[in-house]
């Protein structure tokens, strides 16, 4: 299968799920409360090859984030994930000569390193914008924020460890949380809140920054690893919509080799629908074209495969609540 769904038992529970429950337990949240609604038991994790689904992970995150004591769990979990991933993929990641080579390796290992998010890349003259979107299903705001904190802790932890001087800019799609000190200690570059999407902005000049203690000759070939080619459900749908921006639900259903009704049902299972998915794909590109590349309305409409300008303006107003020129001026 080229994609996996939210209910598929695909993830090794010992990588993220078990440490998550353990960390919650250390903070006084009983494992039964953390696992409520997943049909999982704490003793299930004793099995070495226990597998869990994205749906179970999201449910556990929802259960845990209800507690006040859970504020730092996401950051500690990111740190734990950094250690376990580094132990597994050290020979592939530690010897990438520079930051650019590391980004290429991470892109190839995308579905193994952090399969909960997909990365969409936009290039401009001076910087690369990596937009981080949910890859499997559309999570609730709280779960999305939790997963973003795990990801941020993981990414900034690696950068601080291996590229101590490198500063990367992060834009986050939620308001500044009260526990901002946990973000401050990550020592990332510029961090800003309240954006439309999560983005990691990398200055092109920093791409050549060498990795500390890296020896290119020691890097294992990625081909020997056979990275997972199966991507998350939403990520698979988005990839298709990016390639065919004029596609309709029927085309997407054909791509998934299912009927239209099944496609609708599957989208609903993943807390999404065709129109919102397509809107995200197009609006992210439109915002980048206008804000970063300074395109005119006609150029953006053409890039997004709109037939006429009024149609584009109407869609734009629906996505952002402002006209293209108003967004350009902000």
């Amino acid at each position: 299968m080229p994609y996996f769904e939210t209910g598929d038992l695909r993830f090794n529970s010992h990588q993220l799920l078990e440490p998550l429950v353990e960390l919650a337990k250390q903070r006084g949240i009983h494992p039964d409360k953390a696992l409520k609604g997943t049909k999982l038991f704490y003793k299930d994790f004793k099995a070495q090859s226990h597998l869990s689904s994205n749906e179970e992970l999201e449910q556990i995150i929802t259960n845990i984030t209800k507690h006040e004591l859970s504020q730092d769990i996401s950051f500690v979990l990111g740190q734990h994930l950094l250690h376990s991933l580094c132990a597994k993929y050290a020979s592939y990641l530690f010897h990438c000569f520079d930051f650019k080579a590391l980004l290429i390796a991470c892109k190839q290992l995308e579905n193994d390193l952090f399969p909960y998010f997909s990365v969409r890349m936009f290039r401009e003259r001076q910087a690369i914008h990596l937009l981080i979107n949910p890859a499997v299903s559309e999570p609730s705001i709280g779960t999305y924020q939790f997963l973003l904190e795990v990801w941020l802790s993981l990414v900034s932890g690696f950068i601080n460890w291996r590229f101590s001087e490198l500063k990367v800019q992060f834009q986050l799609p939620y308001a500044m949380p009260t526990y901002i000190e946990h973000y401050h200690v990550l020592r990332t570059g510029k961090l800003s809140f309240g954006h439309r999407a999560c983005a990691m902005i990398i200055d092109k000049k920093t791409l050549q920054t060498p990795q500390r203690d890296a020896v290119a000759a020691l890097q294992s070939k990625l081909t020997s690893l056979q990275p997972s080619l199966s991507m998350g459900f939403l990520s698979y749908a988005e990839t298709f919509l990016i390639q065919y921006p004029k596609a309709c639900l029927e085309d997407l259903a054909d791509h998934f080799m299912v009927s239209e009704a099944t496609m609708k049902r599957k989208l609903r299972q993943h807390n999404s629908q065709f129109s919102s998915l397509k809107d995200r794909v197009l609006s992210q590109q439109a915002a980048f074209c206008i804000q970063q590349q300074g395109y005119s309305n006609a150029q953006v409409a053409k890039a997004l495969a709109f037939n006429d300008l009024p149609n584009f303006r109407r869609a734009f107003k629906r996505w952002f609540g402002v006209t293209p020129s108003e967004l350009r001026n902000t």
Partner: protein
Amino acid sequence: MAQLITSIKHLNLWTLLILSVAVTLIFAIQFGELKPYAQLEVLDAIGEGGLAVMSLVWLIATLLSRPRGRVTTALAFGLTLMLISLLLDCLDEFFSFNHIHPTLSSLEAFPALLGMIVMTIAMYWWYQEQAYLNLTLLRKERQFREHTFTDYVTGLYSARYMEKQIDIEISQLIDNGTRFCVAILDLKAYNRFCFEHGITKGELLLRDTGQLITLNIRGCDLTCRYAGDKFVVLYPATKLSTAIDITNRVCAAAKMHHQYDKNLVKLNPTTLHFACIEVSLPMQSEQIFEQLMTQLTYNKQAC
């Protein structure tokens, strides 16, 4: 199964509760005469039944939340007696005991009276217990208590509590011109420690470090966990040189501290970086933390 039963906390008290409720119910059903429907006062029965249920909820909450000890035992006894009394009062609406003895129904309030006496003694012991617990918290809190600001991992207060304390100090600075100092301490190579020994061991190290800092500061100072491997210390009405001296002593004490793994093998000594600033102008706590973080980064690079 037997192991599961013996592992239940307050097993004796749970047994006492179940037995007393069962005996009360059996007594009422066995010896009481069911009242005719016409004599039944529904509202009275609901009110008295509600009181019995609520006292049962209190009792269960006490047994679930409190540790073993004489305060818990006395509270449970007192509440059980109250429950019996309230239960009898409620059952009185459905059953009549006049055929046994005309004054029997009047005795139903006595278990409650006894229960209130036992609970009064329990409350006095509870007050004493709280006074002893306060002593253990003396070095961890200052001026006010707010359990929602506690950091579960280290047992110290969190950055939110420190913000409130800094706000109090700032208002004193504005009123009296009393300057104060704030220091941030950061564990060196904490990430590597976690990588080598695991997150659980890392969190134990954080807990120990928090205790260690608390032990090596003055009684009037306050330590809180900031975030990650960083701690903040507040030195009220203190000169910068004194604050730096104390922080240096904390770092020296930390160097002498060792962690042990499962095989009692000594792990790397705890080393701390720190930054300390004197606050002489009114400013927001966020600005103070920002300045501390900047200076800490500079100090670490200088090392």
